Each structure stands twice: as C-alpha cells, then as structure tokens.
C-alpha cells in the first residue's frame, strides 16, 4: 500500500468511525456553506429580481426627438430598438398626443401600442378592461368624472387632423384608468385609431422604455443610441434609475455583510468543534508522536480531515443553498431564482478555505501535544 493511500484511508476512517462528532462539524460547515451559497445566489440575483420589481414603477428611459424636429418617426424608433438587450427589455411603448374634444370640452388623446403600454406601466389600475380593438378607448378617471362616462359608454371624439380638416369618431369606453397621476386626464387608444383620425400616421412624440438594467447599463444603451441614431435623444428617468441604484446597492451591502458574518460564525463553529476533536484525541496524537510521527504528519492528518469536512460541507451547501435561495426568492419576490453555476466551485473553495483557516489553531494545538502523555496514562 502506498503512503498516500494509507494517509487517505486513515483520514477517511477517522471521520467515518467517529461519526457523531464529525457530523456536528459537518453540520456546522454545511449550514455555513448553505447560507453562504444561498446569500451569494440572492446577492447576484437581487439586481434581476429587484430590477423586475422596479419595472412596476414605469419607464426608466425615454426617447425624444433631437434638435429641431419635435416628433419622432416610427422608422427612427425601430432603428433605436437593436441597441436594447432583448433579454432586458420589459416594454417599449411609443406615444403620440393629439388635442381632441368631447362635447366641446378639450382633452388630450394618447395613441400608443397598448400591449407595450401594459408592460411599461404595470401599475395602471384599469376599471373595466384594456381596449381590445379599433374604436375602443381607455379613459382616465378625470375624463370619466368630467363627462360622466363608464365602461361600456360611447362618446364622440372630435378634432382637427394634420391637414386642418375636422374629424369626428365614435368610441366606446373599454375601461377607466386610475394612476393617481397625470395619465388620468388622457384618453388612450391605439396608435392606428389616432393616426386614422388625425392623419400623419407614423408620427410619434415620445417613446417610453422600461428596461431591466442598472443605471450604468442604461447609460451605456443611451450612449449607443445617441452615437448611432442622431435623430433620437435618449433620456434616463433619473428619479427611477437613481433610487433603483441606491436601493440595490444598500440591499447588496446588507447581504454582503450578512455573508461575512456567516463566514465568521462558521469559522468559529468549525474551529470550536475541531478544538474539541483535538482535545478528545490528545492521547491518540500523543501515541502517533510516540510512534515517531513528525509534527508535519499530525498537521497533515488534521488538515486533511478538516478539508474533507470543508469539501463535503461545501457540496451540501451548494445544493441546500440553492433550495434556501429559491425559497427566499419565491417568498420575497414571488419569482424563481437563477442558478449560478460558478457557485459550485466558489462555495467549495470558500468552504474549504474557511474550514482550513478554522483548523489552523486546533491543528497547532495538536502538533504541540506531548508524546509522553501515553506513558503517563492521562
């Protein structure tokens, strides 16, 4: 039998045949690794999870016309879209505004891609339903109150088209919109309906974009659009992006701090257990030294045991940590978490390193055991 094989046999046997003590140590490492891997998973998933949450608060980037032109063209908007990472885009809703009248009272009509508007403004509360086809409109609460309209009511919309000719068209109210904001003074309909009435189809005043990305990424997207699509000026909605960045940074710092504390606690727990193991095995260590074991051999054996514990605990931690992170994510964010493959080597390495560090003091104590204790019959 080779020396290395005997070393492995001795180390493994030592762990297996003293299961109860080692189980406690393994539990300490595994719990530490579980919390560590779970928290790192959450740490990396927070921007995605919270980003999704922040998207509920509306657009974080708007596109407006550059220079002299006050409006955008549909073609111009299309040329800007490739600069958004497809996976991060929650919605891109173009808006066109026209002054209209109902019963001679002035209002503002907004034509938009209603499906995209739903995505960029998930916080809109619609009493009734969203418009499903031509001739249907979503009216703001303020409008509904002014002219006493309810879902299902019809009304005639009048105005002047791009050529200066008057138009009049009947619409039915599909729903009444409550936002608590200026949107309640608008009448929302599809871009096609508005273009058909007011002419100049394809004209867009502003594009609201909701992108699940950090402020830095949004700035990068804006820079690319600015340099490649000169007709369009992208603007970050600062109040959304900055508060999002601040909250994310604070949450990540919190998770980071908790992770460090957990690592320290794990280290203390493993060190305590290993110290107890060393104390229990003083006689065995003394015997080995009496048999001629050098201090380095004793250190190797205890470190070997510690590292096996670290490795096993780390493996358990990877699996249990994902379950832990998944549970937290489902309960807090109501969304499944994404598994980070790099966590397998990272948790293993951290677990082995923490266990190794925690073993240093106990191992030094082990190396200092006096071999003469085996003759003293202590």
């Amino acid at each position, binding site marked *: *039998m080779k*020396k290395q094989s*005997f070393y492995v046999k*001795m180390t493994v046997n030592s762990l297996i*045949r003293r299961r109860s003590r080692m189980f406690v140590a393994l539990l300490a490492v595994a719990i530490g690794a579980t919390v560590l891997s779970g928290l790192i998973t959450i740490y990396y998933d927070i921007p995605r999870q919270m980003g999704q949450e922040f998207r509920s608060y509306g657009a974080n980037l708007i596109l407006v016309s550059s220079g002299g032109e006050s409006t955008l063209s549909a073609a111009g908007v299309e040329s800007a879209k490739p600069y958004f990472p497809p996976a991060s885009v929650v919605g891109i809703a173009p808006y066109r505004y026209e002054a209209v009248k109902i019963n001679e009272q002035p209002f503002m009509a907004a034509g938009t891609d209603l499906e995209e508007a739903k995505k960029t403004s998930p916080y809109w509360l619609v009493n009734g339903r969203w418009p499903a086809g031509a001739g249907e409109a979503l009216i703001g609460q303020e409008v509904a109150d002014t002219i006493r309209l309810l879902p299902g009511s019809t009304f005639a919309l009048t105005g002047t088209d791009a050529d200066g000719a008057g138009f009049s068209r009947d619409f039915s109210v599909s729903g009444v919109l409550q936002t608590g904001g200026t949107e309640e003074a608008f009448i929302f309909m599809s871009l096609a309906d508005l273009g058909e009435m007011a002419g100049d189809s394809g004209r867009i005043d502003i594009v609201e974009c909701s992108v699940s990305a950090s402020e830095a990424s949004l700035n990068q997207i804006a820079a690319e659009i600015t340099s490649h699509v000169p007709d369009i000026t992208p603007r970050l909605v600062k109040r959304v992006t900055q508060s999002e960045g601040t909250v994310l940074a604070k949450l990540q710092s919190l998770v980071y701090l908790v992770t460090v504390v957990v690592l320290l606690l794990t280290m203390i727990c493993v060190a305590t257990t290993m110290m107890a193991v060393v104390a229990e095995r003083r006689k065995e260590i003394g*015997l*080995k030294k*009496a048999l*001629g074991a050098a201090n380095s051999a004793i250190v190797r054996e205890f470190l070997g045991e510690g590292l096996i514990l670290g490795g096993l605990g780390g493996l358990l931690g990877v699996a249990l940590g994902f379950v832990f992170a998944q549970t937290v994510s489902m309960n807090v964010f109501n969304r499944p978490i994404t598994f980070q493959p790099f966590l397998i080597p990272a948790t293993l390495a951290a677990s082995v390193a923490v266990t190794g560090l925690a073993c240093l003091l106990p191992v030094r104590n082990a190396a200092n055991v006096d071999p*003469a204790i085996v003759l003293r019959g202590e």
Partner: protein
Amino acid sequence: MGMLELIDISKIYGSVNALRNIGLTVDQGEWLAIMGPSGSGKTTLMNIVGCMDKPSQGAVILDGVNISKESAKNLTAIRRDKIGLIFQQFHLISYLTALENVMAAQYYHSMPDEGEALEALARVGLKDRAKHFPSQLSGGEQQRVCIARALINYPMLILADEPTGNLDEANEGIVLEILRKLHQDGSTIIVVTHDPEVAEQAQRTVVLEHGRIARIIRNTSPGPGAGPSL
C-alpha cells in the same frame, strides 16, 4: 560500551527531583526490568530513554549518540527508527483495524507494507484477527497488537511500560512468552513493572526509590528462554 548508557542523569521539575544521578548501562540483547513504587521516577526514566523527554543533567548515549542534547525533531526521528514502545493501556487507534494499527507505525517510519504487518501479527498469534477493530479484541489481544506494532520497524530497543498491568493471568503468560521469544531473537528489552513475576523474567532488575537507584538485582534464574544470566 553498552547499547544504552545513562551517565549521571537527573531530572528536575521545579523543586521536585524526579531522578537523581542515575547511572546505568544496558547491553545489546539484555532484558532489564525497572521496578519501584509510584513516584519513584520509573515513568520519567522511561520518557528519557524513550526520547520523549530530556534529562536536566547528565547524558544519555543510545547506540553511541548522545541524545540528551538533541532537538525535539531529532528525538522524534530517533524514537521512530530505534525504539519500539509497548504500553500498559495498549493505545491502539480505535478507528483502525489491528492490521492498520501495525501499518500506522510503518507509515510514520517509512512505507506501509501489509504483508510485513500481517507477518508481525502472525508472530504474536493474531493473524486471523487482523481485520478486527480494537473494540472487537480482548485486552490480551490488544496488547499483542501493540507488541506487533512495536516490533514492526525492527527497533534496537523495546520499551515496555507495565505490559501486563491490564491483563489477566492467562494473557500475562502469553505476553511474557512473546517477550521471551523476542529476547531469544536478540532484542534488547526494558520493562517497567510493579509485578515481581514479570521482573523475574529479566536478567537484571533496577529498583528505583525517590528518583535514585536503590539497588540492582541480578536474576539468577530468569524465566525460561530469558537467555544467559550476566
């Protein structure tokens, strides 16, 4: 010159003189017994001869080398290469089988060799118990494993601390028989014992009292096979 020479050694712990001016020579192939009441300095003497402690004064010459000034690291190497230890409490490693316990001594010495370790167990009549763990062995069997472990690296000196102290009469007889055979084969043996019957097996008995050699008894009729008397 003997294989082991203790030249005027003393060991002082604070204000306690555990050993005082001990002078003793042990020849190659000799079987020596050390007796004495508790606190007489037997264990201290064993620790010094077994390279687990150093004298406060005097010199210990083992195989021509003064080991009393050696570093702890060198003492470990000397103990590994030249000394085989037999303990009253056997001190087997609980998570290793009998065979692996013997191989552990080989592992720390040079290279584990299963065949050779089995042979050593066969010499003490325990080949068929090789795969048993210490908890599955009787006290006598554990002591025989301990002896096999002490012999495995062919030490020049076997130190036995109360080798029969924890054994019944039958097992005491078996262990003494093994020691006799070892002595016949030329091993040098030092046995610390309280038991006059065990001491009688040796060629000489050194009696310690209060850290001094009180007397040395030359056994005129050592046990069967104990070799020529000096």
